[in-house]
């Protein structure tokens, strides 16, 4: 079964075409890099997959379900970029991870035994159990990133979307996250990572999707990661536009 299937996807954003005729298929048990420039449509694709933006054409299936069904089945978890988080928000690590369980709870969101166990287990996996009472404002960037990863684990989603997960993260967190993602892959989960760090993508991802307003190429990393494809993605055409070893010229995506 394919975890993510998009075909002929078009997304307009305030009259601007952010994605046009994009198609991709990701099987169960893979880690896939989503690579593209600023404004290439990485965030737009994530927002369409999470149901935040409605595509104007084309269809999306997550675990073979429509996005709305997949949401109700808690199939899909989103781990935001650090810049999207208001670190001064008055919530603790425990509160944030518990938010991953809301879809499993009654409408009043009163946590039960299973919810507390899931949160505890997730916090153990990201090595944050000791800091569970700490407000998120008092965490380091890496600890905060792990908190949101723990939220996705507590949710029990089989499809994880990670937006620039390695931005501003310390080395121990980077290692822990890479280990965790490999574990998830072995368990048959599918992880889609947007990243501009081509070296990181090449080390960690077994698949790659290259996008620039549409999907330019997708497949196994060795097939897709060619100089020619990267030149197409970053629009340089020349040799200096992008290299396989260093980060791409662009760092953050300002797209919708």
């Amino acid at each position, binding site marked *: 079964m394919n975890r993510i299937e998009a075909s002929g996807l078009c997304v307009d954003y305030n009259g601007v075409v952010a994605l046009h005729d994009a198609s991709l298929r990701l099987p169960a048990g893979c880690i896939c890099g989503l690579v593209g420039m600023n404004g290439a449509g990485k965030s737009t694709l994530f927002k369409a997959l999470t*149901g935040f933006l409605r595509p104007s054409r084309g269809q999306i299936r997550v675990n073979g379900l429509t996005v709305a069904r997949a949401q109700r089945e*808690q199939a899909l978890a989103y781990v935001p970029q650090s810049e999207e988080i208001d670190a001064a928000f008055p919530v603790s690590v425990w509160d944030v991870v518990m938010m*991953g369980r809301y879809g499993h709870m009654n409408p009043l*969101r009163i946590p039960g035994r299973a919810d507390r166990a899931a949160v505890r287990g997730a916090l153990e996996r990201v090595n944050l159990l000791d800091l569970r009472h700490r407000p998120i*404002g008092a965490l380091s960037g890496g600890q905060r990133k792990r908190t949101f990863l723990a939220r996705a684990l507590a949710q029990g989603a089989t499809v994880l979307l990670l937006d620039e997960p390695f931005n501003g993260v310390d080395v121990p967190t980077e290692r822990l996250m890479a280990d965790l993602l490999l574990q998830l892959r072995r368990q048959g989960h599918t992880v889609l990572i947007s990243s501009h760090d081509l070296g990181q993508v090449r080390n960690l991802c077994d698949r790659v999707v290259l996008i620039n307003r549409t999907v330019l190429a997708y497949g196994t990393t060795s097939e897709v990661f060619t100089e020619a494809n990267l030149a197409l993605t970053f629009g340089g055409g020349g040799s200096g536009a992008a290299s396989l070893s260093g980060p791409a010229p662009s760092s953050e995506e300002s797209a919708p």
Partner: protein
Amino acid sequence: MIWLLEPLRHDFMVRALLVSALVGGVCGLLSCFMTLKGWALMGDAVSHAVMPGVVLAYALGLPFALGAFAFGVGSVALIGFVKQKSRVKEDTVIGLVFTGFFAAGLVLVSKVRSTVDLTHILFGNVLGIAASEIQQTLVICAVVVALLLLLRRDLLLFCFDPTHARSIGIPTGLLHYLLLTALSLAAVAGLQSVGVILVVAMLVTPGATAYLLTDNFDVMTVLAVASSVLSSLAGVLVSYWTDSSTAGCIVLVQTGLFLLTFLLAPRYGILKSHRSRAS
């Protein structure tokens, strides 16, 4: 004790104290969500935009809450529509729409002067509040409190991370409109005690004060409600003894509490950060 017991001999003072404390508590609870969501400007807009609704409802003999609610939600829908269909930035659209509504309210008041007193709408009239108005205020407060307490986890998540809320199937569009509904209703309730002009203080200041005191949302709501109720009671008493504007006194006490917190809060007060930098 005379300062407390003397005013209580008057029925109008007892009513004013009860109504302003109730309204203060409800607005205080809502203010937590307003400050965390960054909706202060929206609160200002909605509280002004309800004015034509209040005047029309008075003129037609309908409950004023109904008119206020229709115009409050209507103004927000209009803001959303103009923003989406034009290139004008959101804060400009908000400023433009609410002043338009407010101006319409002013014109309407001047046409139906016999039934409505402009100064009561602008500056509140909690000392002269009528029994029918108290009833409506009670219903409004009950609805808003129920909405905010039952949905507080979802609303908090909606303020904190709407993308995650959406991705686990929580209807964020519905929450957006429910929060706006609560805002319109609370604006009408707040209008009773401090009037259109100052109601935004009720919807922002208690939340901001509490936000400087804690990193726990539940504690924040308790502190906001407590500071808001306290300010309302103290404000009404101060205005009685000094024979000055009730609305002004309520909001001044609120602002005073904020300033104290701003200076002295254990972790986020400026004196504290001064000390820790010096050491």
